[in-house]
């Protein structure tokens, strides 16, 4: 089954900026998928549309076969989102942020507390359980957002630059955690500017630039195509796109 099916997705903002110019993209269930591209390429717009934070101008989006137009509430239950920017109330405690999110997904408080304790332990935040979010380090805040996204056990986890500003040790720990999640069956979509991160973790990759998918291939195939690193391929595609304009 396809975790994500996108057909002819277009988005034009009220300012006239055309962020997506007809994106077609399929992501299989169980995949660890990298969505790459420079700043302003349209990655976050795609994610915002999938998660219903932004309205699309045209096209069709299905999450595990459920259209976001026909049954948005059902589609949302499949998704856990870790956004690029910190978007929790910094004056709330770690445990409250996670359990409140559980409540929004209809999980009763008692069960939410049990699940939250389990997740924050797994993410190394146990000793910060009752700490206000503003007192956490950058890396801890990132992990808190992952914990919050996982509280309802989503089938699809979307991470928008989850390791930005995180130190190497913490990044490696996060990679390990995400790998384990994926092995346990969670489909993961990752956007990142650290190409070695995508190389290390992802099985499939799409490179998007100026609102269009420029490449969509298995990572292995891409790396076997004669070029040494994903970085070279990435830069080449971006250059090609620039020359075409």
């Amino acid at each position, binding site marked *: 089954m396809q975790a994500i099916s996108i057909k002819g997705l277009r988005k034009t*903002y*009220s300012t006239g900026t055309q962020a997506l110019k007809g994106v077609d993209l399929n992501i299989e269930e169980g995949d660890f998928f990298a969505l790459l591209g420079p700043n302003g390429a349209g990655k976050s717009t795609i994610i*915002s549309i999938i*998660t*219903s*934070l*932004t*309205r699309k101008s045209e096209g069709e989006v299905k999450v595990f076969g459920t259209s976001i137009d026909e049954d*948005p*509430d*059902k589609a*949302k*239950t499949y*998704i856990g*989102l870790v*956004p690029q*920017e910190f*978007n*929790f*109330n910094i004056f709330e405690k770690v445990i*409250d942020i996670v359990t*409140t*999110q*559980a*409540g*929004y*997904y*209809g*999980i*009763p*408080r008692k069960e939410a507390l049990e699940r939250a304790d389990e997740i924050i332990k797994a993410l190394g935040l146990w000793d910060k359980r009752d700490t206000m979010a503003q007192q956490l380090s950058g890396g801890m805040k990132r992990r808190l957002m992952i914990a*919050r996204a996982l509280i309802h056990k989503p089938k699809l986890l979307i991470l928008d630059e989850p390791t930005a500003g995180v130190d190497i040790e913490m990044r490696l720990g996060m990679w390990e955690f995400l790998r384990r999640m994926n092995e346990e069956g969670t489909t993961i979509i990752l956007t990142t500017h650290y190409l070695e991160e995508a190389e290390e973790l992802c099985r499939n990759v799409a490179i998007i630039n100026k609102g269009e998918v420029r490449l969509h291939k298995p990572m292995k195939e891409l790396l076997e195509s004669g070029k040494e690193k994903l970085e070279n391929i990435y830069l080449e595609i971006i250059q090609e796109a620039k020359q075409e304009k």
Partner: protein
Amino acid sequence: MWTSYYTMARKEFVRMIRIWSQTLLPPIVTTSLYFVVFGSFIGSQLAAIEGFSYMQFIVPGLIMMSMITSSYMNTVSTFYFAKWQRTLDEILVSPTPNWIVIAGFISGGMIRGLLVGTLVLIVSLFFTHLVIHQLAIVILAGILTTMLFSLAGLVNGIFAKGFDGISIVPTFVLTPLTYLGGVFFSINQFPEFWRIVSLFNPILYMVNAFRYGFLGISDVSIAMSFSILIAINVVLLGLTVYLFKKGWGFKN
């Protein structure tokens, strides 16, 4: 769905209690000053209004004034800050339906408004004795008014694009209308022209319905007051549902 609603209402309540010195204390201090200055000092020198002392006359209006301000400020500030900090996305990415989100925000405003109203009522007992003509009218007017201003605050929060946007309406619209809405006087004491002008102020009807519940006196028809309260609630609710459906001000 009940869990989502409970979560939102609980979150609002916990926040309100956590920052009680910002949410509950200021209206108590302000109205206590009104009771002292207008009620005791000035009011003692004024003639009775329809058989009630000036202090007794202004108590319902002052309770209503604090309820209006508290319920409005609660929703306008929580919604705007949720939008500004993007914490609203926590709810928007979840399967919580729009009507539950609206109900959650409104409940927060209503709980704060009713809680503040109750506290101010308790404080008023230090200055005058309590008269209750019809408790049901008091409760109904309190619920409908806090709901109305919670909705109005939410609409303001949706449209607000900056911090100025959340203070303009309370300062330049809400405060003048409240002060001119019969809190401190009966509009029957006005010259005919200003009495008629006052009848266009919706807050007048809320204050009078509330005062009727306490004292059994009113400048306007109680049926008319409740009709206006219900009509404005319906219009604001319809507008809020529409704005949420369109994602106005919070969805690109």
